[in-house]
């Protein structure tokens, strides 16, 4: 009886010490959940979720301070993916958030641009190149379509356009056709 208590007690003490040591030694830096949520977000850094960028929004979701349906560029797919990750019910997107957003790209009208560099400072991914009093242009492949460069432009020379589709980037569309009920019998079908 006593020996059993001693053995169990010693074991508990050793394991407790081990666990305590592990908790200090192998402490995870940062929030792994926020990291995972951040991976699902589209990284446009547009701030439309009311947070300054994708990472802060992911952290807010992880802390339970934000809803999962606040990401318009991610659309329904992103919302569903986050819902699945967190094991919560999917939430409907707001009316202003399109279900299937079209990827956009910013285009600078180079003849109107005055070279003020304000858009360069606004771009979250450094996708605009140019210098003071010289024409600016957008590196299309890096543009996330966040629209953050639109408000600072003093001459409104930036427009958002759908990404250009070439045969090499074209996607096969979802098959759409009219589905007919099977005819009750072939003779009827022929008469119709």
């Amino acid at each position: 009886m006593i020996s059993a208590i001693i053995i169990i007690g010693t074991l508990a003490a050793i394991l407790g010490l081990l666990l305590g040591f592990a908790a200090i030694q192998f402490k995870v830096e940062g929030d792994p959940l926020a990291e995972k949520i951040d991976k699902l977000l589209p990284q446009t850094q547009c701030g439309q979720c009311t947070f300054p960028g994708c990472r802060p929004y992911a952290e807010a979701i992880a802390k339970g301070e934000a809803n999962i349906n606040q990401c318009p560029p991610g659309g329904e797919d992103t919302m569903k993916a986050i819902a699945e990750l967190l094991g919560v019910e999917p939430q409907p997107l707001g009316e202003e958030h399109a279900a299937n957003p079209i990827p956009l790209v910013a285009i600078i009208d180079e003849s109107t641009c005055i070279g003020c560099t304000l858009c360069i400072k606004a771009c979250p991914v450094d996708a605009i190149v140019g210098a003071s009093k010289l024409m600016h242009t957008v590196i299309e492949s890096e543009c996330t379509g966040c629209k953050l460069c639109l408000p600072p432009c003093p001459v409104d020379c930036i427009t958002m356009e759908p990404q250009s589709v070439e045969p090499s980037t074209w996607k096969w569309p979802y098959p759409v056709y009219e589905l007919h009920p099977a005819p009750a019998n072939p003779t009827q079908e022929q008469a119709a």
Partner: protein
Amino acid sequence: MKKIWSLPAGLKLTDYRKTMSTGQSTQAIIPQVGERLLIPLVQHSGDKPHLEVTVGQYVNKGQVLAKPQSRISAGVHASTSGTIIAIEPHLIAHSSGLPDLCVVLEADGLDNWGSTRLPALDYQHTEISTLVQRVRDCGVVGLGGAVFPTDVKLNVRQPVPTLILNGAECEPYITCDDRLMREQAEEIIAGAQIILHMVQSNSCLIGIEDNKPEAITVMQQTLTATNDPRIEIVTIPTIYPSGGKKQITYILTGKEVPSSGRSSDAGAMCVNVGTARAVYRAVNLGEPLINRYVTVSGEAIKQAGNFEVPFGLPMQRLIDAAQGATIPNPLLTMGGSMMPLPLASTAIPVVKATNCILIRPQPTPERVMPCIRCGRCAEVCPVSLLPQQMYWHARAKEFDQVEKYHVFDCIECGCCSYVCPSHIPLVDYYRFAKDEINNQRDMRQKAEIARERHEFRQERLDRAQREKAEKLAKHKTALKDKEASGESTPEQDAKKAAIQAALERAKAKKAQQAQTETSTSDANSASTEGKA
């Protein structure tokens, strides 16, 4: 007699309609004076090549129009001699129906090679890497349909046990490989020998379906004359789709290509007979790939047949060569009837992938009905997939599930859609699912890059701010130190002394000025007083 294996499934079609176009020998079409050729820059699967010509330039036949820049890419050459009058987008043969960049070449009718032919190579006494480079320089791509750059394929790291020459041509209507084997057997076998040398192989199997007895006879005769014991012609049963590269590999070697693997994983390399001929012409004649055999067939064409067509000629030219369509507004498609690619216009040019064009009456649209889960699609699938499951999941956009059912192993042969009693366009769903999955992957990759760029920018801004703050702080402390110590350098002393001296001088000047002023005013007042 070599043992052959039979496919797990497939279709035994009743009517192949091949005899329509096999009757007469192949006619070569030569561009006439003033005729416009639209030569698309991308005629292969892979990256865009780099344009090497400008508008207004005169080019000889076979001259390079675009050069490959990256590894998986292929060059494009002028199909005839003439002047480049434009480089602009035109409609091309693509499922998207979108235009792509084409070189518009106005033929001068001379069809003049000039000196563009590369020097002939004796393959047995040439480095393999030189041969691979030659194949690349000549823009040779797989002519079976996938148009994958051949140089990438032939650039092997280890010897290939079995080379397979694909002469199956399993799709209905198409007879271009049949005619090619009958007419160019020497060149095909010479090409096979070159490829055997390049991939260091000792065994070549030429698979031909048993519905092409004439081709088999001619090839056998040529092979006997060549007397090369490494090459063997194997007659395989006519079953669709035995011409798929994984399918013919299995039929001839009994080895299955693993899921999402390549033929080389099964110890084989599969090359189309047309590609073998193109390799021969590239190496032995130094000619780039600028034309190919094309079948023109269908119920609505007057005189079906085969033509050797330079790339870039519009489809209309082929229809005219076949004496025109018999009905107004026929359905124009590229490829066989099992995997047809609809073409919106007869102005679309012939490209490296064009094996056949079909001119048929417009079909009555099939009424699509709900899936009744009959399972016939699964019975015919030559890859042993479950088409029905993939259909349901693709329809519901459950892409992870579609992927679990190995949609990427689907060869899009169309057997499932063909037998579906509800006429569901099953293959369209698989294509949609594949593109969507690939797109999502690309988007994730793009998001990852955007995240990195954003984080880097954030770091850069933070660093700039920190550095600025540090600089300011340093400046402030330096100033404070100086004030506290009260010491001054000799330079500053000199400066101070100079300032002091200047101040003194100014003071002295002022004083002097004031003095003279008072003295003159005194004198003035004295004089006025005197007058008074």
